[in-house]
């Protein structure tokens, strides 16, 4: 046999564009896949299709007007974004937030976590082909949206927090509704688990897929469930407590294998932990005002700070610089968890099959509104 390969048998790589309009890229994500057969040998993740310049816009808006812009980043967990921003400004201005407001904020943030994880669970399962879970998860998410509607009148972009506290106290009877929801949610989680957790196909599709070691995950800057899935104990709620998390008891679930299945189990466990936190928050809700003492004109002293919270996707950080003179931030920077997690996508998908690409986009749980800002 001749040593040089015959030209008849040379192989071509297939380059396909996954997205920006693809049913399972969760928005306008584009991945340029280089395929050998169905195996991915290289990938380029292209983002920026819904870049709206929220950072630039925020630098030209009033401090309070920015809350409304933060809603538009991670639009499936808008209240969490509000919380992160308000806390950062409060830190910068050293404002004391009343305890009741901190409790309500915590409850809202955890409700958002459940809502966001519901959406993740539904779409992730849908990507792998289990279409019923999608509607089950959305059914519960709908109830959370109803709760938020009761609280602030909006269902998606809440604008539900203010610098120094909250614009509204909770309506009467709302806490009972939330309690009822917690009970319901607890009874629904086994439904999801029944459909997925021990399903052979689900196990085959998720176990050992997209394995990343803890060390690599830290190096790549992954955060939230993808980082914890690799067994790294990192939860901003525990490490750098904010709102009222230091007063509550909850566990941080950790994975062992760092694969898609572990990340799935972690998020399911986070449902339960969130319910636990919400119950503690409602039971121990102190009386008092919901708005702290805030100067009429919000104008922080010159200085800068970085403050992070644990959004459903991971570490959501705000870096804000005030020049001390204007009523708008001089520099407004968001550290979007989805952006940093999405960066970990390429190392995850290389070597896997096309079908796994879809699984892995699902497992890192990105919201493109937050990635692109």
């Amino acid at each position, binding site marked *: 046999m001749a040593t040089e390969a015959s030209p008849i048998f040379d192989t071509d790589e297939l380059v396909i564009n996954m997205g920006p309009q693809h049913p399972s890229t969760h928005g306008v994500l584009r991945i340029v896949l280089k395929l050998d057969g169905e195996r991915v040998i290289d990938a380029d993740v292209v*983002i*920026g299709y819904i*870049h709206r*310049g929220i*950072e*630039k*816009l925020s*630098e*030209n808006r009033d401090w309070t007007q920015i809350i409304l812009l933060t809603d538009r980043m991670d639009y499936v967990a808008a209240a969490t974004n509000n919380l992160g921003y308000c806390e950062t400004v409060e*830190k*910068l201005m*050293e404002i004391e937030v009343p305890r009741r407001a901190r409790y309500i904020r915590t409850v809202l943030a955890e409700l958002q976590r459940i809502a966001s994880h519901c959406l993740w669970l539904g779409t992730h399962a849908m990507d792998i082909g289990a279409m019923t879970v999608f509607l089950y998860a959305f059914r519960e998410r709908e109830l959370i949206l109803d709760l938020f509607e009761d609280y602030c009148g909006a269902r998606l972009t809440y604008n539900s927090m203010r610098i120094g506290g909250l614009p509204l106290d909770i309506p009467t009877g709302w806490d009972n509704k939330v309690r009822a929801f917690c009970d319901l949610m607890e009874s629904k989680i086994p439904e999801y688990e029944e459909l997925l957790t021990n399903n052979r196909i689900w196990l085959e599709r998720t176990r050992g897929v997209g394995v990343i070691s803890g060390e690599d995950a*830290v*190096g*790549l*800057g992954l955060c939230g469930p993808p980082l914890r899935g690799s067994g*790294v*104990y*990192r939860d901003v709620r525990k*490490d*750098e407590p904010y709102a009222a998390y230091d007063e509550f008891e909850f566990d941080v679930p950790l994975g062992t294998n760092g694969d898609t299945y572990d990340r799935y189990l972690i998020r399911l466990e986070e449902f339960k932990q969130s319910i636990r936190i919400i119950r503690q928050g409602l039971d121990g809700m102190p009386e008092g005002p919901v708005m702290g003492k805030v100067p009429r004109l919000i104008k922080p*002293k*010159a*200085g*800068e*700070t*970085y403050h*992070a919270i644990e959004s459903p996707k991971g*570490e959501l*950080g705000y*870096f804000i*610089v005030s*020049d*001390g*003179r*204007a*009523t*708008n931030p*001089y*520099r407004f*920077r968001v*550290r979007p968890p989805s*952006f*940093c997690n*999405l*960066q970990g996508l390429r190392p995850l998908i290389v070597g896997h099959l096309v079908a796994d690409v879809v699984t892995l986009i699902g497992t890192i749980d990105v919201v493109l509104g937050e990635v*692109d*800002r």
Partner: protein
Amino acid sequence: MADEPKSGDKTRDPRSGGPQSALGEAAPEPAAAPKPKPKPKPKAPPEAPKGPADQPPADDQERPAYFGGFEKALPGAMEQVSYWVGDWTIIVPAAALLEVATYLKGSDDGSFDYCSDITATDWPPREKRFDVVYCLYSTRRRHRLRLKVKLGEGESIPSVTSVWPAANWLEREVWDMFGVNFSGHPDLRRILMPDDWQGHPQRKDYPLEGPGEFLLESPMEWLRLRNLPDEAEIE
């Protein structure tokens, strides 16, 4: 809302290079730092801020333990230390950045293994107009630190992707938004803006409205600028 400065002869320069390079005749004033506010205040354009406060720590403020080792290992790397609302910031020279990063990641009492964020701030009137900010975290020691590097226009800064792989996209975003050049970056392309975009939108002298109005007012000029090779070429 008719903002009065729109019709003015403010530079509507889509290019980052700023007035001095592309539109020679335009006023070299560092284009209107705070953009027109919605409230129609009779505003005397405030002079652009000179830079962040970088407040020094109070004398009685206890310094983190790893500062001592850091100063001993890399003498002179710590140009300035700042403390504000609970955050420590170290300002380091660009030349020493890579050493500092490697040391901070490797040192036992620091062990900053997690790069939370990299971003920049633009202070146009300053000679070194950019502050590149690194937000670091240690998953083992659970503390935070910010590094800050001051950088002038056209200068480049060593990339820290070799220390923290997470820096890859974050540095790309800083390049995209500010035009800060990272030397040694494996893949320095635009990330959020389109590949053929001109200018770096997060700079303070970049108009909030983008290049749109300039394009409408003088399309030929816009086209000429667009076809010019990008001056802030990568490396």
